[in-house]
């Protein structure tokens, strides 16, 4: 019974990683950049929702909507100021800029919101599900997170495959120069990708802080890194891959903590990652890279 309970716990943690990883993988797949500031956008989203919900007393749904809008604007602003001028620069230069943005957001949050952490109240009011005479409980947050994660994944996949903008995104990700020739506005496509990624970050922050209520200026950093790992795990650039990677990562983390060592949980997660990548060098659902001669 405790195994099932750990498994559910793992899926719950994993679905949070998955939803963050979706944002990572979207941006990476299209703009070919590791947006290290993604985790911090989630942190900012948490503060925005917290402010509207707990300080100003708005309804949770409205607060999350405002969070989505403001995060989208934030994402677009970051993209416009810090990433767009570097479109032709080496990918590493953009990576470093993203790190600068990440430091910036963290320190800005520290200055504005203060160092004392906040306790985020859950935006979800679904009652927990009790199974097997109360020996197994699934929290309301998990009950909402997992289906929501699947819905987002499916709609993102459909959007990318079917809509004109979505197909533009695929074109940009495969060959930027050819996409320009086909009349696709690359800058606009990348901006839309960032907008979607940041909106996803806001949703992720609502779900993440509902489950793990501690909100401080650094609380986006580690989930961000773990979600990045999850995205690579599933095959970076692949939308279903991010979802699978996230959930697997959560399960591995919890199970290794439960049965091997609580101190070395992270080390084991990273070890499994290395092993998986050695067997499947581009992640679970990653495309094979063709080497051109």
């Amino acid at each position, binding site marked *: 019974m*405790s195994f099932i*309970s*750990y498994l559910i*716990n793992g899926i719950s*943690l994993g679905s949070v990683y998955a939803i963050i990883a979706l944002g990572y993988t979207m941006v990476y797949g299209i703009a070919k950049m590791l947006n290290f500031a993604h985790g911090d956008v989630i942190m900012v989203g948490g503060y925005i929702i*917290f402010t509207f919900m*707990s300080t100003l007393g708005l309804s949770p749904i409205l607060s999350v909507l405002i969070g989505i809008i403001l995060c989208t604007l934030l994402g677009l602003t970051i993209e416009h100021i810090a990433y767009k001028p570097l479109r032709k620069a080496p990918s590493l230069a953009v990576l470093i800029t993203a790190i600068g943005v990440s430091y910036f957001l963290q*320190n800005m949050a*520290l200055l504005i919101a*203060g*160092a*004392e*952490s*906040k*306790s*985020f*109240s859950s935006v979800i009011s679904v009652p*927990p599900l009790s199974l097997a005479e*109360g020996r197994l*409980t699934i*929290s309301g947050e998990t009950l909402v997170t997992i289906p929501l994660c699947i819905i987002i994944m499916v709609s993102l996949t459909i959007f990318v495959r079917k809509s004109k903008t979505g197909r533009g995104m695929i074109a940009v990700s495969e060959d930027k120069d050819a996409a320009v020739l086909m009349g696709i506005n690359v800058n606009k496509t990348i901006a839309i990708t960032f907008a979607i990624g940041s909106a996803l970050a806001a949703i992720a922050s609502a779900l993440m802080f509902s489950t*793990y*209520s*501690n909100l*401080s*200026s*650094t*609380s986006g950093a*580690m*989930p961000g890194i773990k979600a990045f790992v999850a995205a690579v795990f599933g095959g970076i650039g692949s939308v279903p891959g991010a979802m699978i990677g996230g959930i697997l990562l959560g399960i591995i*983390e*919890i199970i290794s*903590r*439960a049965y091997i060592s*609580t*101190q070395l*949980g*992270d080390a084991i997660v990273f070890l499994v990652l290395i092993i998986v990548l050695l067997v499947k060098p581009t992640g679970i659902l990653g495309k094979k890279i063709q080497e051109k001669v």
Partner: protein
Amino acid sequence: MKKRIFALVITLSFAMLSLAACGTKETADGNEKFYIGGIGPITGGAAVYGQHVKDAAALAVKEINDAGGINGYMIEYRFEDDVHDPEKAVNAYNTLKDWGMQILMGTVTSNPGNAVKEETYADNMFMLTPSGSAPEVIQYDNAFQVCFSDPNQGMASAQYIANKGLATKVAAIYNSSDVYSTGIYEKFAEEAKNQNFDIVSAEAFTDDSDTDFMVQLQKAKDSGAELLFLPIYYEEATLILTQANAMDFKPIFFGCDGLDGILGVDNFDLSLAEGVMLLTPFAADADDAKTQKFVEDFKAINGDIPNQFGADAYDAIYIIKAAIEKSGVTPDMSISDITDGMKEAMTQITVDGLTGAGMTWEATGEVNKAPMAVVIEDGQYVSAE
């Protein structure tokens, strides 16, 4: 590329020159004021501790200066950031030395303290750490602590649990990447062998995975523990309390001074903290006039309710004052002479502070004061005696 490098070199040499130029300040002779420096994290993940220390100490300094200073000498106070990093802490120490620091009130956390103590020992500078609780921080004779050392807290917790007969089966969750937490836990586990209770489950977490505690809680629950020992800080404790509640696990929660502050977390559901016990020298809602005044004044400058770090720092400044008054050192003496005078005075003074009445010090640097057990009832601390 070459141009860029060249520009960098130019910038750098200008910067170096400007720093070298302002480094010639001589402060050792003819000082009219005591220069007290503070070191702690005011940015990064541990910022909350350093900011409380910084503001509380500034408050004490202002009070002392308004009341005429120490033996008529005013205090100059400056606080530098160490981002909870030993290397940055040494940089902060040197920055303060350049500024003319004569007495160090720091560091706030233990690992940076371990690095800085080597510097203060080499310079023979008096060092009083408000909250750096690892015993290694006060290894040398020029260093003293305001807070309890970690092993002392672990020992006191184990004895308290046994003497009060709180439980026979005890579980513990601690932070294995934190010196404070492992320090308390190790001594607690050692002392538990001499006491009439058993540790049935001891699980750790790290700073990198401090959000999900379900596994640790599940293990504690399965082991049938009646009491959960939490030698950790209050941020993680709020998560543990929330998650324990969600899985219907309701043991006695018992913590150390790191849990103080839990009632001040913005928007935290206080009903979850009901019945939590902690050993702490300071309670922000104690009803003595001194604490209440401190809490009011602190809130006016910082906005938050002070945690025990702030209280320790406030006391630290008054302890420095007492030691200076006892020894009769003056700001125009050399740093080494000030230190020699003060470290001798430290073993002779008795200070009534926010964090304990009748505090005295051993020559080793350890403080003697009585820990106070409190229990949270209706969102308030109530003495558990």
